[in-house]
């Protein structure tokens, strides 16, 4: 039995407003399914479930704002029997236990997968939903057998309207600013940052990229930023101490490398959603993932795991012309890697000065977890990988 709780979608998040359920009691869910939407200061987030099972009970109605950690639904894991009250299962009262258990579990029809279940919905509700533009899959029915009726659709439409307003208010600059303010203030207060920088000659890399892109159609072309993300992921493989969290007063490096990529929002503020397992993705896969991620970030359709899973953040301000970024770590992460603009600079090598395209990579890291030595090793590994694009 699992309680599906209001997730923390950022270090600073205290509460979220449940916008809608995408499942109903009886629906089968598997790990990673999006089962709800929650409005937060950083926009509407699609919430994923973390276990396989069957939705047994919905505990929080759409429209409710509840603190992080509040149980939202009960998920019965596979193989688990329908819940029996604990006190009736004791050996002291076997008769009572039996009588309270109801019919044997195997007599219960197996829950059908959500996908092929025809929704129970009244004709009038179906028409109203279509008139109001309400997705009937998202409406929770309160009629007989969970049937969706007009009142349910009206409620959903109202909730949608009202919550859209709430979430619009929440995602305006004020809410977003307040949320960033909280996280960054905490970071600067609690995390003793140290900063390292290195300049990387990208001439080989860029000519490799140029050749590579010539072979590709416009849609398949790679941006330098992709190589940088991939190089960070690879370098973390060499220096895993920088990948993970400082939490509960201790260093907790993580095996999976999920890179948070800072995306600035046009209306102000930024979000750094996670690219999962960036080290295992090919450059093409990364390009596709990033494009989708940026699009969904801007459209406010991020998933909860993308909001929570990042183990490090990469920020690239090169587009805006800055040379180097000395960033503030996004707690509870351990480090932030910044890239500036790729500029032609005089470059000394083998006793001669030439002009090379150069980028400055910086590392801001948590001195509680690592020391400058690991940071330096990381930047060195980053440089090595970034200069060998074919190995990425």
């Amino acid at each position, binding site marked *: 039995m699992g309680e599906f709780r209001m997730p923390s979608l950022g270090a600073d998040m205290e509460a979220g407003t449940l916008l809608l359920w995408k499942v109903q009691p009886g629906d089968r869910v598997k790990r990673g399914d999006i089962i709800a939407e929650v409005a937060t200061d950083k926009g509407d987030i699609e919430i994923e479930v973390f276990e396989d099972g069957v939705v047994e009970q919905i505990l929080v109605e759409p429209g409710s704002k509840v603190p992080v950690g509040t149980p939202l639904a009960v998920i019965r894991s596979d193989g688990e029997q329908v819940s029996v009250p604990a006190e009736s299962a004791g050996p002291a009262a076997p008769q009572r236990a039996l009588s309270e258990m109801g019919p044997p579990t195997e007599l219960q029809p197996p829950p059908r997968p959500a996908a092929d279940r025809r929704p129970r919905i*009244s*004709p*009038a*509700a*179906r*028409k109203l939903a279509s008139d109001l533009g309400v997705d009937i899959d998202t409406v929770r029915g*309160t*009629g*007989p057998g969970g*049937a969706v*009726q*007009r*009142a*349910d659709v009206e409620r959903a439409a109202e909730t949608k309207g009202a919550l859209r307003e709430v979430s619009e208010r929440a995602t305006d600059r004020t809410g977003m600013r307040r949320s960033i303010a909280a996280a960054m203030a905490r970071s600067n207060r609690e995390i003793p940052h140290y900063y390292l920088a290195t300049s990387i000659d990208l001439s080989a890399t860029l000519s490799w990229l140029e050749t590579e892109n010539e072979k590709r159609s416009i849609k398949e072309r790679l941006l330098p930023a992709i190589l940088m993300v991939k190089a960070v992921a690879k370098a973390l493989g060499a220096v895993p101490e920088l990948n993970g969290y400082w939490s509960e007063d201790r260093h907790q490096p993580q095996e999976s490398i999920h890179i948070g990529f800072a995306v600035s929002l046009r209306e102000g503020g930024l979000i750094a959603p996670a690219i999962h397992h960036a080290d295992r993705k090919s450059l093409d896969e990364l390009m596709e993932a990033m494009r989708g991620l940026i699009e969904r970030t801007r459209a406010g359709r991020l998933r909860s795991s993308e909001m929570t899973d990042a183990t490090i953040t990469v920020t690239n301000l090169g587009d805006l012309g800055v040379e180097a970024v000395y960033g503030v770590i996004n707690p509870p992460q351990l480090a932030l890697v910044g890239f500036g603009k790729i500029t032609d600079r005089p470059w000394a090598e083998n006793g001669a000065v030439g002009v090379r395209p150069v980028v400055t990579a910086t590392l801001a890291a948590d001195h509680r977890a690592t020391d400058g030595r690991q940071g330096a090793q990381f930047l060195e590994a980053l440089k090595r990988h970034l200069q060998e694009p074919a190995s990425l």
Partner: protein
Amino acid sequence: MEVTYREAMREAIREALQKDDRVFLMGEDVGRYGGCFAVSKGLLEEFGPERIRDTPLSEAAFVGAGIGAALGGMRPIVEIMTVNFSLLALDQIVNNAATYLHMSGGQFHVPLVIRMATGGGKQLAAQHSHSLEGWYAHIPGIKIVTPATIEDARGMLATALADPDPVLIFENSTLYNRKGQLAPEAGAVDIERARVHRAGRDVSLLTYGASLFKSLDAAAALAEEGIEAEVIDLRTLRPLDDETFIGSVTRTHRAVIVDEGWRSGSISAEISARLMEKAFYELDGPVERICSAEVPMPYASHLEQAALPNVERIVSTVRNVVRTHG
């Protein structure tokens, strides 16, 4: 002015006899006895035996005579004691009255009016208490009207007589003693439209005859719980006024039909089917029906009352429909 349903009906017959020489009343005991429900009391004295005619105990004979008289230019009002006895005249009604217009290629209208008592509730047992008006509503070629109110008792007869084709008037026997106000100038009323008796937003109660008053009482009780039921008197079962009851359901999205007939193959089944056909996308829940128990009407009072639709059943059905269906 306060009158009973019976007095309103008698006044309607009197007026018809006064206004049109072709009109006459015939049936069992309508003359000297004054009608088995005393509707025609006093009319024999006023209009004489030529126009208030007692007939032998043969429904087939006197309904057939009525058809002949109508074909011959008269405007007969034929009274049959109860709908159960009308079954003896089914051949005349269904095979003759209802068909002549069509079978004569539109040459022979049958301007016949047949009145009969219908319904249970007076401990008259199974052979006098059934509600077969829904059954008659199955037959093309005749109109079926069911006056429930004093106004309709007073006004439907004139319109029925003016109709060139056969009209059957079903008078629920429990209504005869019902009192109500009637305007002194009250007269003919239409026999085409259903009437909204009480407006409400939550559910449509579609009914006719004596069930109208049970439905209105139920609606009053439901209003105290905050449930606003719209009550519609269908008034005419053939042809049904689809527009009015569908309009109502389009507003309330829920329908409960109260019909004193038996459920299977009833007028309530027909109304329910039309709601599916013409208002499917307006329905927010299944159409519910409250009908008489499917038994021959019991004699014992408590059994008879249990078999008939009653206010409590209407209230609980509506409550269930409104509460669980949104």
